[in-house]
């Protein structure tokens, strides 16, 4: 892999990496800090459940 050819390009690479990490955490739900899980207060009951 080639190295960045200038300081500007290195900064650009860092910005791109941070943006990619942000997107991955945002869409996968991975968090740096644990978050209290909240269950939905009204789950739709399983439609196949027999009553």
């Amino acid at each position, binding site marked *: 892999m080639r190295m960045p*050819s200038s300081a500007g390009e290195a900064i650009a690479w860092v910005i*791109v990496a941070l943006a990619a990490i942000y997107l991955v955490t945002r869409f996968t739900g991975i968090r740096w800090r644990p978050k209290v899980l909240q269950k939905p207060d009204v789950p*739709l009951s399983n439609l196949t459940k027999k009553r």
Partner: protein
Amino acid sequence: MSASKLLLVGNPNSGKTTLFNALAGMRARTGNYPGITVEKRSASLEHQGKALELIDLPGTYSLTPNSPDEEVAERELRNCPEANVLVVVDATAISRGLYLLTDVARPGRKITVALTMADEAKRRGIEISAQALSETLNVPVRAVDARDREAARALLRDLENAAEVTLDLDYPGLVTKLARDADVPESEAARAVMGAAHPESIEERLGDSLAKRALALAPEELAAAQEAVACARYACTEALKSAATSAPPKATNDTRTEAIDRVLLHPILGLLVFALVMGLLFEGLFSGADPFIELIEGAVGSAQSLVRTMMGESVLRDLITDGVIAGVGNVVVFVPQIAMLFLAIAFLEDSGYLARVAFLIDRVMRGIGLQGGAFVPMLSGFACAVPAVMGTRTIASEKDRLVTMLALPLTSCSARLPVYVLIIAVVFAGESRVLGIFSMGAVVLFSMYMLSVLGALGAAAIMRRTILKGPTPPFVMELPPYRMPTLGALLRITWSKVKGFLIDAGSVILALSIVLWALLTYPVHEESVAHYAAQREGVTDAAELEAIDQAQRAALLEHSAAGSLGKAIEPIIEPLGMDWRIGVGIVGSFAAREVLVSTLGIVFGSGEADEESESLREQLSSATRADGSQLMTPLSGLALLIFFVFACQCMSTLAAVKRETQSWKWPLFMFGYMTVLAYVSALLVYQVGGMMGFT
């Protein structure tokens, strides 16, 4: 020490959330139709040096819940027996409010009452004495303007005097016996009798022993007891009302609301008015926002030029101009239209008109097997599908709710608007006016919205007849009176939505733009660099050099990671009239639709733009395919528009459906059917249109 709780309970559209906002200084969503609040919302207050947790509950007519949102209210009241309850009673519909009060009251429950909309009741000739009602109930009762913060705060002072209500309820013998046998208060036994209509949740709500006794009653005995309980509550309600009402209401047959309703609810006139209102809305959206869009486009272009002047030629400069500014800037350009759409929807909602539309549409909805109530969440789907999916909680039937949830993402949300406007402006600009009034762009925009509604209704109809069969329950909805919305409330709603959009543009779109720029820049195709460097040797003519630069940019773009991906999917999208560059945009837009605009801004900007920045619209208009033919023609534009009408390109909506259904099955099904529908529709439009000679 934990905070004491104050629960806000009342009928739908009685002004609970407005009161909640006034008390807590918050700006939770309110509106002039029932069912805006579908989950509990809380705020922490300090009252007389003590912490107080204020909880706004979804509206309900009784504590025998019929729909998931009513369950939320019932459950919260059950789980907080110690909490103070503020019962919000709409003075214009006092009987219904007092009926709920008879259900909420129980031994030990401290209650205060807020009478809202007393001014409106007065206009209708209904004079209610809060003092007389307070004396009869033996609890504080205060008439308040829910929007007035100071008046609302006075309610908190009443909490000191909150007490058990005194009710003269004459329950039938069966309830008295049930109460004695189970050793519970009569009010509890009455709830068990009424709750036996929903045996699936009665044990959870009332406890094993009482539930078993209620369910053990013979059906005829139970039905008679339920009727007797309802009659006892109504008799009590009427007695309370008579004690509090000093003058009989004037004849209200011909109120302003009813006069307007004669036109707006007319089966034919009503639909015509609806079509006209929508037509004007889209004309306004399309033509009215143009000057603002040009202004922002100019600002985006200037920002790019400024950065280019300030920074020397470098990769970092390209990232800022071609990635960040081109990506985010091209989405921000559409903020005026989004603001106008939200403002118009907020106005129609708050005026009470949208509730009428739900009523008008009920007939159509029943034809496809859905109730009119499903139209309300579908309508909010025009703003954003995520709250709309949650809004389906007002629907009692589970299958109806699921069908609505799966079909409503087809209604055109605000994120589709930038895509529509961009494509329409590129391919339908300058076309002649329709009927001399509406611009062609507005007509196409209106058609896309109509197509999305037809798609949603059609999908619901098919699902109702195939995978989710079942009877359609009747639709009962309270039509709110017409009210002139306040400018402040409209601007607040609009600002909160625009802010949400901007924050989204500022985070996801910004990050996606940066990553996409990298994917369009790397890997650098060294052979192309060497090839064009050799071509430049000996050339001195500026125009010729510029042409070589342009060709190099195009070659590098084509060999980049995103270019390779676009090229890989090109065979799939070519039959829809699109090329690899649009393909890159489509792939990106599966995260969020509006990303298409930022992606196209980057793809076309970095490939073709020179130092003098052109607007994205101009770049798209002049873009050509490899064979030199024009890329964006009316036919290919239409196919792209139709793809975006039907495609499921929103991760947040999929997550919301997963959350509400507690399963991945339904969101995956939704994604699958919408994607297939989008592809096949766009394919048919482009191929059949081409065969018919359209370009």
